[in-house]
């Protein structure tokens, strides 16, 4: 359970720490496709496996749990604590780092190991990254097929939402347990905001150009969301979920009055990888769900 929590939030880290570049600067241009890849980003690991480059992956981050095969690879640390020695010991010919891991990139430059940096961006960057990875790993056809499947899937969800009224939705990443204090919510930037808009919701915090922000109680009342979606509660037992959901009953917002409070504990929802269509469908289902009777 603990590791599941780690994964979800670890993935969220990356989502929240996003910029807009995709698969960026390569330190060295290799002659052939890499045969020993170390990926430090769960979303990228998922992409590599999905385009058939799984056998080339020899090391993954500590937060990787999907697909199951990825968990069999040696773990080389996370965003803040990549283990340079372990990475070297895997004798990689490509290391994919996150955009903020400057120190690791500098260390890799001192060796002969090529590296690529990656940053999470918006929804459109997912398929762009998949195509770029296809080029880099010589799985161009598979990557193109996957990217098109994702684009079609997302287009279907967008189609479904077209022309329907857009419920004003608040996307919550965190808060103090058992109370409405310390609400940490999505602003109007990033992959999760994009997903919500695609799925037919209107983000009540869309005017704040940030990935995440702390929401005051005053702003919660002023923004008056019709729907609240909490992307947390990984591995919570049913009673705890019910208890945390009940916390919202006292909030004087339309979502509480109509009972449209949804706690989603699905780790795939916060990973901007190949499973994004599933995430879009899940959020769309919730956005358009009829309010349960009070």
């Amino acid at each position, binding site marked *: 359970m603990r590791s599941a*929590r*780690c994964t*979800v*939030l*670890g993935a*969220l*880290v990356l989502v*929240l*720490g996003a910029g807009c570049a995709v698969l960026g600067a390569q330190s060295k241009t290799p002659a052939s496709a890499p045969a020993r890849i170390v990926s430090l980003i769960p979303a990228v690991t998922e992409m590599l496996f999905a385009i058939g480059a799984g056998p080339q992956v020899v090391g993954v981050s500590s937060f990787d749990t999907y697909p199951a095969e990825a968990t069999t690879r040696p773990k080389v640390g996370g*965003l803040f604590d990549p283990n340079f020695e372990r990475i070297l010991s895997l004798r990689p010919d490509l290391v994919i780092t996150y955009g903020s891991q400057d120190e690791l990139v500098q260390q890799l430059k001192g060796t002969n190991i090529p590296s690529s940096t990656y940053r999470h961006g918006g929804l459109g960057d997912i398929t762009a990254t998949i195509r770029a990875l296809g080029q880099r790993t010589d799985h161009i056809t598979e990557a193109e097929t996957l990217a098109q499947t994702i684009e079609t899937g997302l287009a279907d969800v967008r189609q479904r939402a077209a022309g329907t009224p857009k419920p004003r939705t608040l996307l919550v*990443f*965190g*808060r*103090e*347990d*058992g*109370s*409405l*204090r*310390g609400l*940490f919510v999505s602003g109007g930037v990033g992959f999760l905001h994009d997903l919500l808009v695609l799925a037919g919701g209107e983000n009540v*915090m869309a*005017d*704040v150009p*940030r990935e*995440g*922000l*702390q*929401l*005051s*109680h*005053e*702003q*919660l*009342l*002023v923004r*008056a969301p019709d729907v609240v979606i909490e992307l*947390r509660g990984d*591995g*919570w037992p049913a009673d*705890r979920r019910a208890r945390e959901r009940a916390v919202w009953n*006292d909030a*004087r917002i339309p979502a509480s009055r109509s009972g449209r409070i949804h706690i989603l504990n699905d780790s795939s929802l916060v990973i901007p990888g190949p499973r994004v269509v599933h995430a879009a469908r899940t959020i769309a289902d919730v956005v358009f769900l009829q309010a349960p009777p009070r």
Partner: protein
Amino acid sequence: MRTHPLKRGVPLVTISLLTAVLAMVAAPFVGPTPLSMRDVFSATQPFADNMDAQIFFLARLPRALAAGLVGGTLATAGVVFQALLRNPLATPYTLGISAGASLGAMVAITFGAAIPLGLPFGGVTGASLAGAGLAVLVVYALASARHSGLSTTVLLLAGVTMNAFFSALILFVQYLSDFTETFRALRWLMGDLDVAGYQPILAALPLVVLALLAFSWLARPLNLMTLGANAAATRGVDVVRSQRVAFFAGSLATGAAVSVGGPIGFVGIIVPHLVRLVVGADHRVVLPASFGVGATFLVACDVLARTVMSPLELPVGIITALIGGPFFLYMLISRTRAI
């Protein structure tokens, strides 16, 4: 020691406390959302449909009251710790109580699932109170272990050590936690008075009242104890008992305040000195005046916190430090020149 006659003190105390009440009443009228005051106080509109009234009474008023309670409590606790430790640099956080409270909060934020507390307030509040209690007991046990009374030197050293020790544990817990948890934990450490209702205030109020009653009893013994333990004893003060009361009441006040607003800095050190600069050193005046000034100061800081960058919140602890630090230095320098 110069003591001011109470004659001069009473009006100053009255003014400071009235200002605090005024600040708490006025603060909800200020905010990022324009409110129609006619709607806020409308007797005809049902409260459930009256957003203006909800913002006023459920978001702003609790914040103003929380700020007043926390600010006043931290300031008076600062006075007590400075007198108890006979050290002008002492703060309510010197003895590791806030570090203990913070550790409790960090544990609750990181391992929230493991603490099924059936409390009327959030688990973080309860956990921070428990952490403060733990720190108090450890520091007390250390300081009274080899002395008949409390050794202020041991108290100070034990407190500083516990601060460092708890800080290490806080870092360890943070290292185990994940990004959003780390962010929320860090955010908690910056102080936050957005209490989202009256429960956290009501939970802390009995503790604060108890501590303040003890403080009022302590005013005279503290006056004499600033002369030194022996001098106080010859004037009929039960020094050991007074030290114990000061330690536990100060800790209780600090723990309660931190459970509401997090470890908001500077209030507990600036306000007592500021008040002493104006009213002198008599604790019968300094304690209540500090409560009034501390409350007013933190209410004002929180108004800035929620308006300056709206809809973003500015952590109130940053504001207290940014305003409090330079202001205190200015007071110090201009006073020194005058003398």
